[in-house]
């Protein structure tokens, strides 16, 4: 049996799946009595039409690159990590503790410090499910779901009882010092004479996210550890036979996954809010699942998918504002993307494979 060409597998199938997801999202918009084309125009205008919208789009994109990479690293090891949300929450706690407890003189020092804090806390939160999976055989999907809830309770408790400013109304920590302020796109681009909206939250974390995507590529496809992770993800028995220690791979892959999710906090906690607020992650961990699936667990795909979801997130906010379509529409699109690219993959693949088979046969006959 001849197989499908590689480009069809890597590009065509995801593309058709995504088009299906968008088609059904359009149907939803149409069903609630709105114009899908008008909605798209509003979203594009709101997400890319000015530097304020673009700044928000890139801010969300940054979040999703981190969580997308987080889900993807685990996925390469054959692990489905639904816990990026909780790991990012703990990462936020780590970043907040680093930013609040050290009088940082300058952001160039504060950023690496906060990165270590966020990554460490995120990795620590991923370590327990990883260890339980590797050593005790507890299903990582179930334990990471449970750990999301436990993380939410834990961070809520610490925020309320230890970090909250006494007497303040809002459940949030004190504001970070001026030395922990990360440069925004406005501040970064001004020296070059490029005007970027002052209020947009996009900041230097975006650059860190891109560097993380490059590091991800090097790690997975250019190092021995990455080879071992992929080998283990392809076939556990074959990997074991080849002398790869499964316990080590599961734990290391999940530690990297948790660290990447935790790193997200430099963007939302340190870069945007500049304090720890309740539910700071806002579901970005879950969007990471869609981003990783859509990006086929490849960094280039992940960055592009993250950008698409950043656009959907910001565009969705505009939609709520101008068209009175709830921004939860983005959740529907996200669900359909996960459904079509992840679970209904074969629905697109099988007919397409038959098509290619028929085409190659005809070519042979001719």
């Amino acid at each position, binding site marked *: 049996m001849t197989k499908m060409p590689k480009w069809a597998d890597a590009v065509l199938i995801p593309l058709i799946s995504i088009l299906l997801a968008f088609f059904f999202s359009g149907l*939803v918009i149409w*069903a*609630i*009595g*709105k114009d899908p084309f008008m909605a798209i125009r509003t979203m594009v205008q709101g997400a890319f039409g000015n530097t304020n919208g673009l700044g928000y789009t890139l801010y969300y994109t940054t979040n999703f690159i981190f969580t997308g990479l987080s889900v993807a690293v685990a996925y390469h090891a054959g692990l*489905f990590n*639904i816990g990026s949300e909780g790991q990012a929450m703990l990462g936020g706690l780590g970043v907040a503790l680093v930013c609040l407890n050290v009088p940082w003189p300058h952001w160039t020092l504060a950023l690496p410090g906060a990165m270590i804090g966020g990554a460490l806390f995120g990795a620590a939160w991923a370590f*327990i499910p990883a260890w*339980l999976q590797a050593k*005790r*055989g*507890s*299903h990582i*999907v*179930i*334990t990471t*779901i*449970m*750990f999301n*809830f*436990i993380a939410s*309770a*834990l961070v*809520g*408790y610490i925020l*309320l*009882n230890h970090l909250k400013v006494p007497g303040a109304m809002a459940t949030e920590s004190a504001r970070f010092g001026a030395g922990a302020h990360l440069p925004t796109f406005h501040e970064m681009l001004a020296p070059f004479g490029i005007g970027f909206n002052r209020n947009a939250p996009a900041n230097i974390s975006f650059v860190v996210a891109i560097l993380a995507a490059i590091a991800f590529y090097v790690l997975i496809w250019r190092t021995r550890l990455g080879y071992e992770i992929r080998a283990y993800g392809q076939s556990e028995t074959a990997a074991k036979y080849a002398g790869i220690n499964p316990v080590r791979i599961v734990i290391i892959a999940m530690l990297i996954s948790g660290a990447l999710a935790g790193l997200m906090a430099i963007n939302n906690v340190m870069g945007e809010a500049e304090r720890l607020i309740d539910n700071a992650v806002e579901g970005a961990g*879950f969007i990471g*699942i869609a981003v990783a*699936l859509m990006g086929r667990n490849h960094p280039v795909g992940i960055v592009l998918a993250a950008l698409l979801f950043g656009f959907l997130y910001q565009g969705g906010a505009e939609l709520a504002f101008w068209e*009175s*379509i*709830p921004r*939860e*529409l*983005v*959740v*529907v*699109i*996200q*669900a*359909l993307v*996960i*459904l079509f690219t*992840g*679970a*209904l*993959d*074969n*629905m697109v693949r*099988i007919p397409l494979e038959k098509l290619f088979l028929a085409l190659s046969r005809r070519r042979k006959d001719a």
Partner: protein
Amino acid sequence: MDYLTVIQILDSSLRLATPLLLTCLAGLFSERAGIVDIGLEGKLLAAAFLSGAVAAVTGSIWLGLLAGVAGSLAFSMLHGLASITFNGDQLISGVALNFLAAGLTIVVGQSWFALGGRTPSLFGGGRFESWNLPFSDAMARVPVIGPAYDELISGHTALTYVALAAVPLSWWVLYRTRFGLRLRAVGENPGAVDTAGVSVVRLRYAALVIAGVLCGLAGTYLASLAAGFVKDMSAGRGYIALAALIFAKWRPWYALWATLLFGLLEAIGNRYQSIALGDIVIPVQFMQALPYILTVIILAGFVGKAIPPRAGGKPYVKER
């Protein structure tokens, strides 16, 4: 803590355990047939929304119930399409369904009622009335047993009694009927069932139909109890039910005890903001997280081992 307080806490435990029990039994049927169902949360939410919405529009909770069950069934069938027909990843499909429900309920709800994703409040025939069992008023004056009978056993809605009846019924179906035997077999060794000439696909779809109906009942219960649908009203109950299922080791009677335990934890957490035990104060957040923590401990095998059905989560591909 006096006797009446204990009775009241137990009463609200039962109230809170009802949707968990129905959802847990739904998961039980599905997972016993080898289909992992982390989409319980989504089905619960979809059912709660549709039953709430239809009950609000028509004024009849029975029509609401029908709509809720239909919505939950639709989600179940979508899960079946992905995981049975197209051999897709059951976990990913479940995750997708949860998001789909979370998003659709708000988007559709907002365009339908324009109340920020809520439905109008249900009253009168739009809600299930609580049933007072015979003699409950007369019995209330009898010491000790009286209040227990009046508060705890009597005075729930029909669905609570349906949920309780579903436990022995599920046990009977699973362990005393041919269908149940085959259903359990298809979750352990689908190849053997196939060899015996029984359709794996049909059995698994049947299990998902049962799961859809049970989740539909659970969602309707939530909407009826809260007198309407509120955004994200399932509030993780689908996941708690999943936790209870693991706790129950995929067995009906254990499911009853597990969901009652989680109901009790929730009732205590609702009633007391924090609990002082001598010098140690247990914060309310800990009580909320306790079911999840317990599940992790059980899964780790520190307290008994939870062994799921062997073929769970794996698509069955017929050999050619």
